[in-house]
């Protein structure tokens, strides 16, 4: 199954790209999506995650076609 992954702000710069695609396996969690794509880089502390544009826990399971996003703490307003 395919998962679309996005990065924002400092995390995007650190990784050097704005998105990834992953052939995920059934039952994969958000944090496992990160681990599969960045085997040598643990998820930076305080990183936030979203699935289909809703904030998500790292342990949430992803489904085929999901958009998973990782980004640093927000600093708007």
């Amino acid at each position, binding site marked *: 199954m395919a998962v679309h992954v*996005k990065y924002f*702000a400092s995390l995007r710069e650190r990784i050097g790209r704005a998105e990834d695609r992953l052939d995920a396996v059934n039952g994969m969690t958000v944090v496992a999506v990160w681990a599969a794509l960045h085997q040598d880089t643990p998820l930076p502390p305080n990183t936030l995650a979203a699935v289909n*544009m*809703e904030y998500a826990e790292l342990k949430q399971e992803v489904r085929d076609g999901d958009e998973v996003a990782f*980004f*640093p703490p927000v*600093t*708007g*307003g």
Partner: protein
Amino acid sequence: MRVELREAPFDPLAELGHYQHTQAELSGRYGATAVFIGTMRDFNDGETVQGMVLDYYPGMTEKYLWRIVEAAHREWPLLDTLMVHRVGELQPTDPIVLVAVWSEHRAAAFSACRFLMEELKSKAPFWKRERTSAGSRWVEHNTSG
């Protein structure tokens, strides 16, 4: 209700006046309007700031802003809400955010306006990158309310 992201500079007072003018059904009903305008300063964390980029998550950011506006309307008896947030390249003195809330009496407007700003600041997907004479840096944390 209106929630908008803006790529270009905007004039919050003109925006507010225009929006209010178009909401003819509000006329005579509201006794209270509470407004907050966030503006880019030329100084932050001890350094002169020359410019800023406001990054966001197209799709999720708008969705999140609508969600907090709807939460405010569930919590308080509001007549209307306008929220405009800048994105992209900003200069010092540029307005960043406008939140305006209309209600019959002042308590609801005051409380909702502050709630919206706290929610926006703490959870809406926006990220500031400041440009100073020493280069460019992502802002690490927001000021507390």
